[in-house]
């Protein structure tokens, strides 16, 4: 049995030696989901990082723990990595839209108002896609808006028409909105942090007074 100085480890009764383990099969650690957060009300959602999870619901829980535990957050989106389509990456001063050559698919008979347009779009089997831009390499993708399209490729062309003026655009992510799990406005109290957790903030630790007092005592003590 494994011996340890640490009684808590010794109690586990772990074996002293074990054969090496076999390589794990794929997805033993689950697939990944990409997470976007909203730092405060009214700001755009921005990419924060991935989580590994067995389902979108669990991914949301992990994401909340991982990405909102320590920083302000007012909303979160989670989507499976495999649901994201992306362009290639260009340089920090370029726009990736400039490298898209295909022209936009045109739709005959523009509708007089937006709700008509929407109704027609749904009738054509189109859906909402969320568009994210990366403005600078090493930074995070930010949500710039929604487009309506029948495929990710078409959504990208729609995005070019809607947001193609922006500069620079290093990389674009396109996600079908139906593949995104979003936090609910009604549940917004889940983002409020209890004020009793100050002990996790650097600012809660003020030791200079104690150090100064100690130094004074040392200076005053006859031993010195």
């Amino acid at each position, binding site marked *: 049995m494994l011996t340890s100085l*640490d009684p808590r480890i010794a109690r586990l009764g772990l074996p002293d030696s074990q054969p*090496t383990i076999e390589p794990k099969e794929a997805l*033993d*650690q*689950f697939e*990944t989901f990409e997470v976007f957060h909203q730092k405060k009300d009214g700001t755009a959602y921005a990419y924060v990082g991935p989580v590994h999870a067995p389902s979108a619901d669990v991914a949301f829980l992990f994401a909340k723990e991982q990405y909102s535990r320590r920083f302000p957050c007012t909303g979160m989106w989670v989507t499976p990595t495999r649901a994201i389509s992306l362009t290639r990456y260009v340089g920090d001063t370029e726009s990736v839209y400039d490298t898209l050559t295909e022209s936009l698919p045109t739709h005959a008979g523009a509708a007089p108002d937006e709700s008509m347009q929407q109704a027609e779009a749904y009738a054509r089997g189109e859906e909402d896609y969320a568009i994210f831009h990366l403005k600078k390499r*090493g930074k995070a993708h930010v949500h710039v808006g929604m487009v309506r399209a029948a495929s990710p490729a078409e959504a990208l062309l729609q995005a070019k028409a809607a947001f193609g003026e922006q500069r620079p655009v290093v990389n674009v992510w396109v996600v079908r909105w139906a593949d995104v799990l979003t936090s609910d406005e009604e549940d917004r109290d889940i983002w409020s942090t209890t004020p009793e957790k100050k*002990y996790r903030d650097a600012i809660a630790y003020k030791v200079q007074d*104690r150090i100064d007092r100690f130094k004074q005592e040392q200076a005053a003590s006859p031993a010195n």
Partner: protein
Amino acid sequence: MYGSASTHDIPANASTGLENEDPQLLAAFEARIARGEKIEPDDYMPALYRKQLIRMIEQHAHSEIIGSLPEGTWITRAPGFRRKMAQMAKVQDEVGHAQLLYSAAETLGKTREDMITDLINGKSKYSNVFNYPTPTWADSNVISWLIDAGAIVNQMANAKGSYGPYCRALERICAEESFHLKYGHDAVVHMATGTPTQRRMMQEALNRWWPPIMTFFGPADKASQHTEILMRWKVKMASNDDCRQQFLDMYVPKILEIGLTIPDPNLRKNEETGRWEYTEPDWEELKRVINGDGPCNKERLAVRRAAEDNGAWVRRALKAKQQAPKYVRPLA
């Protein structure tokens, strides 16, 4: 928290493999880094760049996981409710850092499954300091303060590196580490300015930890073609010696001002050169311990393995329900 990756670098005599790279792509890659642009996962990158980054980020992730074990075991015995809560929050942060880092390494093409297998089988390394024990609460405090301080020196440098996903992860990690550093300092100051017994405990813990701390950044870098290339590619951002000097500059005064002594009679700052002089750390011991013969190597991996084994049925059950049949690496 983090340990120097460079102690486990590619051997200096190994080939850089650059002769196998497309010269045009390589030139564009180097020009991008020289312009100050970051590299993103889908970009062309030389095999050596990919290999060294996987090694570094993976070791960093393992260090976070293994490093949380000696501190985690002190949660239940931490003196007072507030310190238990804080110690718990710190350990949770460290484990979270590992998740961020595993994902960043994954973007380079090594799966998390493989990283975990390599850790448990002893094939991948982690920061060597965690192969030493924490017999008292004061030892845990030394980790919280000084090991994290060393880690921050390293991480702040690496955050300016060239690989986008690693930079994004480090930005978050550094923000959280600022709490660890203050918390650790607070705990050490509390003990060092406390009762004679507390002071003695703290001094003894520092005496135990000083030699591992001095090896934390690894031996002086050998002048090699690899070092030169990795610095140019902004994979390695500062030499091991420079990191150690920076650490001593920042923390020796803070250790001395609370009445602790440093167990190295040769430690002094040479005012002429501006460099710290010290007794040369025992690099043979470092090598021996890294390769498995340290006081806690076996224990750390056994505990990690037990966690892995105990959770296997949960992962199996969840996976059985999973719809996605194909592995996709994270995007950024």
